[in-house]
């Protein structure tokens, strides 16, 4: 683990407020995840990646942008590890470092239609933009 990774790990643990040592690797989070196949690093792997300090891999993963934020993993985690919050934490850390967002504002107009609710745009901006 590099020093930078150690810093990121500390930041993720602070942002998420989770205790990764509680994970018993049961896989309930991954089993509950509706976007499992869209993930390169699976929800149940987040706790051990963070425990090991393998933060660069997490920061570059597709997972952090593909997570739906549906909290199914948070709700069903029997150990209160709350993988969804860890994913959120890594995404936040990634955005803070890149100084920007995943989806660029100029990408948005082409993606909306007359029915697109404000809630959707707000959510995307809040989740993916610093």
């Amino acid at each position, binding site marked *: 683990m590099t020093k930078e990774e150690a810093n990121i790990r500390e930041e993720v643990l602070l942002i998420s407020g989770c205790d990764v040592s509680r994970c018993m690797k049961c896989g309930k989070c991954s089993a*509950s995840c509706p976007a499992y196949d869209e993930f390169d690093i699976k929800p149940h792997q987040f706790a051990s990646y963070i425990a090991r300090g393998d933060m660069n891999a997490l920061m570059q993963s597709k997972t952090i942008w593909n997570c739906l934020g549906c909290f199914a993993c948070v709700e069903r985690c*029997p*150990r209160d590890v709350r993988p969804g919050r860890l994913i959120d934490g890594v995404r936040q850390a990634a955005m803070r470092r890149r100084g920007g967002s995943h989806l660029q504002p100029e990408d948005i107009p082409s993606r909306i239609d007359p029915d697109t609710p404000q809630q959707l745009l707000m959510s995307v901006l809040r989740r993916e933009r610093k």
Partner: protein
Amino acid sequence: MQRIGVFVCHCGSNIAATVDVAAVAEAAKNQPGVVFATDYTYMCSENGQNLIADTIREYGLTAVVVCSCSPRMHEATFRKVAQKAGLNPYMVEIANIREQCSWVHKDKEIGTPKAISLMKTAVAKVNLNVPLQEGESAVTKRALIIGGGIAGIQTALDIADAGYKVDIVEKSPSIGGRMSQLDKTFPTLDCSSCILTPKMTEVAQHENITLYTYSEVENVSGFVGDFTVEIRRKARYVHEDICTGCGLCMTKCPSKKAKNEFNRGLNTRTAIYTPFAQAIPNVPVIDTEACIHFRTGKCGLCAKNCAVQAIDYEQKDEIITQKYGAIVVATGFDLIDLKPFGEYAYNLSPDVVSSLELERILNAAGPTSGHLQRMSDHRQPKEMVFIQCVGSRCEDDRRGKPYCSKICCMYTAKQAMLIKDHYPDVNIHVFYIDVRTPGKAFDEFYRRAVEDYGVDYIKGQVGKVTPQADGTLLVHGVDLLDQKVVEINADMVVLAAAVEPNPDIRKLATMLTLSIDNNNFLNEAHPKLRPVEAATAGVFMSGVVQGPRDIPETVAQAGAAAIKVVGLLAKDKLKTNPCVAYVDELYCNGCSACQNVCPYGAISYTQKEIRDHGVREMRRVAQVNPALCKGCGACSVACPSGAMNLKGFSNRQIMAEVDTILCQ
């Protein structure tokens, strides 16, 4: 005034190196009441002990102070010496000048004055000591077992075989417990009823055992050796002594829609029923909520058909009171409520069953006569999914338990093999977190399921079970080793639900002043060295009430509890700790403050005539039962008027220590 002897031990050089022992002895001579003081190399040696005993006789000592090692080390030794020399053993006090003085300090100039002040403190205390007598209490040679499962049955048999009377109180209409609901038992696959039924019969026929089924413990008072227990015998509406167990009443009963608890609600039973065919006693009970006669006053078919007139609709609950010397709690377990696990569709589909429900389905006496079938359409399943750790190892206390339930890994392997034995074409998938099989021949058993029977073990969990239009259940899970989603169209899903102690234990624990842990399991007096004894003297535990365990462990523990009971009942008298609370009735105002803090229920109240300054009046005053009191002293502090006190650690004794201990 006491005549005190002070004995200062060198403990070789352990004390003498950092404490001028002669100076301590010399200083002692000036203390009030001290008539003799000396030092010696090893006070605990035979010569040292003789020195103390001889001095007691020669000087007519009334009290002794030994300045030596910790009282936790040799207090008992020196008390025995005193007793042999004709002195009350409680007239001995120890000044701890080794562990708390000579070993803490390096310098004689520091150690000596401190040792002197510790000596003075002990002298100050012993001046106020009074002789204390160990009490005696009688032992009622009869044991009570609460709970009639395998734990209670085995405990009762072992005690009864040793020659003591035993009563079993069982809440349900028959003994047998959870074990009677099981089909086969791991790892040998013996038929559960085949090994349990003979034991049940033995209980019923044993001359030393009395059975109170359909009964509950209502109240407990008393203490080790002398408990008084009230037992409520619920009205069966069938006279146990008259009924022949012919079963005609059950065949005639027209009310057949009551939920069958024994079969975990998978089918129905009649209003007058025995839970299962081998029930002991083989006497039915009437479920008044289902009975037409109790609801409408009509019917009465059972009574009309009973050839011996055993049925009595007017029967009332009966309270019997019995004395016991020892009590064993063996109230067992149930599975947790599966309703909060909505993701497994347990509430939505009858084909999602608990492991115990499956056990009934597999049992030849069960709702399907032992044929494996779905409860929805009675089809035989082809694909089955077992989900492990449902509610076990779960920190979310709204639906699970933090502990491992211990038995699920093994019974799942067992159920899988039993099914494969009878229905080789059934595919079985087991989603697991870890497979835990510590135990004799346990891992081999599990491996047999994998290697010989081809049971598909998948490391991972299930996220959702969704009933499909075709009647199957879509099981969506993940295989963590393959990192792949696994979707199985199952015909049946079996949930290995966590075990939890029978909820009745809370009420019982209050009655017996037992301590229970956060999960409602009983706490042992010591988790390693006193594993079957409760902290309350005379109360023992057996079976899952203490923690998850399987049948062999339960039977072993039942034997251990029994020998503890037998050891207690074999005594005619029990010695009691004399350092107990006592009350100065003149100061007591009957406020109950002491009773409220007593963890042992040792304090009660009585109306007593008190003479106060020449006036006689009836007052409510506290009284301490010395057999129950353990001498913690909580009451003596709670008492607002200073009436409560503790022998051996009285207010005046401790005050004398405080007064003296800071002296230079």
